[in-house]
């Protein structure tokens, strides 16, 4: 691009970015600072950002204080992974169908999927609870995975569909002329070409699943060993006081799996994977 910004435009842009970043990142900084302080000096006045008694002690004591912490993290990771995989199994063929096939009420159905997303999961908690109770599914992983999966599918379909419609139709026509069936084409041609889009959908699904576990776990599960991290964190809430420093430490450690998944998957979000497919 030829356009160059003037110095005051740069100042404006960067101060805008700074304001946003402050709002988004300040809680994390505060959480980190809190996790480093002993409980006794947390509420000292005047507030000081850096104090002498800082240490990583909370990161060690939290495992003793809440012995099942690692289990909660594992559960969270497990539930989010299964939700993502099950979600993808539904999303990929559905998004492909929505992007390529003409069928009655296609757009109405797409609209309905978005409408589902407008309901908060919380609205459906009571009916879902009755349902789970009827089928004896309460207090299982399934109770936390199934509703989670249902809620990642609509967004996933919309995201992936918009990626798939940009894949040139000639690729499928060529495969069709070469004798490949619809399923063969989907697996051998469309999915590899759509990989960057699928990765974006996976990341979104994983993060959504990781964040939304709380409400399902809280209502559908009362077995401590099955609890995911957000519910497990309640163990730091004592009768008298809250162990803030360990709570923050556990929260920050709990974010790590999501970061790892992101780092692992983002290698596949590469532009130009379709380079050379067709002449643009």
């Amino acid at each position, binding site marked *: 691009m030829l356009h160059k910004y003037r110095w005051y435009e740069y100042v404006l842009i960067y101060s805008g970015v700074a304001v946003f970043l402050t709002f988004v990142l300040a809680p994390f900084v505060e959480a980190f600072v809190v996790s480093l302080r002993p409980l006794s000096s947390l509420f000292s006045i005047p507030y000081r950002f850096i104090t002498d008694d800082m240490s990583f002690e909370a990161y060690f004591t939290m495992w003793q204080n809440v012995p099942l912490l690692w289990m909660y993290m594992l559960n969270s990771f497990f539930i989010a992974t299964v939700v993502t995989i099950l979600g993808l199994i539904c999303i990929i063929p559905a998004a492909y169908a929505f992007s390529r096939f003409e069928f009655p009420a296609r757009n109405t159905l797409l609209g309905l999927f978005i409408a589902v997303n407008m309901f908060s999961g919380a609205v459906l908690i009571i009916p879902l609870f009755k349902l789970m109770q009827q089928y004896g599914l309460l207090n299982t992983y399934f109770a936390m995975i199934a509703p989670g999966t249902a809620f990642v599918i609509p967004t996933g379909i919309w995201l992936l569909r918009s990626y798939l419609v940009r894949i040139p139709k*000639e690729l499928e*026509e*060529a495969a069709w002329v070469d004798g490949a069936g619809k399923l063969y084409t989907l697996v051998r*041609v469309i999915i590899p070409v759509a990989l960057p889009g699928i990765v974006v959908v996976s990341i979104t699904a994983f993060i959504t699943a990781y964040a939304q576990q709380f409400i399902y776990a809280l209502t559908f599960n009362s077995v401590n060993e099955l609890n995911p991290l957000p519910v497990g964190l309640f163990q730091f809430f004592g009768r008298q006081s809250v162990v803030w420093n360990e709570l923050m430490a556990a929260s920050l450690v709990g974010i790590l799996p999501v970061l790892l998944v992101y780092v692992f998957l983002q290698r596949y979000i590469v532009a130009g*994977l379709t380079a050379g*497919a067709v*002449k643009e």
Partner: protein
Amino acid sequence: MGELQLRDVRKSYGHVEIIKGVDLDVDHGEFIVFVGPSGCGKSTLLRMIAGLEEITGGDITIDSKVVNDLPPVKRGIAMVFQSYALYPHMSVYENIAFPLRVERLSNDLVEEKVHNAASILQLNERLQHKPGELSGGQRQRVAIGRAIVRAPSVFLFDEPLSNLDAALRAEMRVELAKLHNDLDATMIYVTHDQVEAMTMADRIVVLDHGIISQVGTPLELYHKPQNLFVAGFIGNPKMNFIQVTGKHADENGIVVTLPSGQEITAKVSARGDVSGKALTLGIRPEHLTLKSADATIDVVPNVVEHLGIHTVTYSAVEGANSTFCSVLPGSAPAKVGVAVSTGINGADCHLFDENGNAFDRQVTVAALDPAEMHL
């Protein structure tokens, strides 16, 4: 074998008819080119033969089997797309092998066939590359390779060269013609480029709004266009048309009056009474001469192009439908704004009736075809 018949083939989208009844017979080994302006239905017709578009009416027969409802692979065709449509995540080898993998052939057989195709197309060095690493011409060769490994009876090409630059296009044109000879296969080729059509085709099919305007060898279309559309479409620069009035007909041809009042005898076979009728005289720019001729037209050029070998002039002429073009020798003394007297010979003229249909010229194509003359 690769014989193809189209019988009254039709295609409509809703109430709009795109292909309005096409009949065509193609023999084994022929190179047929579909040409026409954009929107004439040439690509649609090709996709109907391929099985990518359903046909609304009529029959498509390949090797005496009606294939209307068969999927592409069962029709014995292979298609090369304008945009190449290569699979970007697969190597050149896997791209060419794709149709064979679908058929679940053994690895040995696949390797043999892919190498065979690759050596015909000189792609041996490139087999392990991805399509993204190839040049336009190489990508197009890979697309052709994918078509030839299946040894189909009919090859279909949908404007395969239109994405290449001019030099490469000329090169690929020669390669395709050679490939046609080597493979002894029937090829149907869609293009909007006249040069491709004239140079490669055994026969050209000119399409106009979903109907076949004329089918014939390249020289037949050039020398004996059956109507105004073909006359105006084939040839570059395009034929000049002048409004004339019919006077009388005799065994020498039809005598017509030019807008300037001169008379000229067009060497065509008369049909019905022409006296007093409004007719259209067609004369190709390259047939205008500076020597003495049967009639003359004074042209005052607006634009003069000196190409060295030729001098091309564009001018407004009384009675002409559009800009009147003449292709004169490179030494012609043409200047903008200075009148040039150009001559027309009756033997070079085309004459069309009020419906745009041509009167048959009194020459045979064989007499005009240099290749035939020495036989």
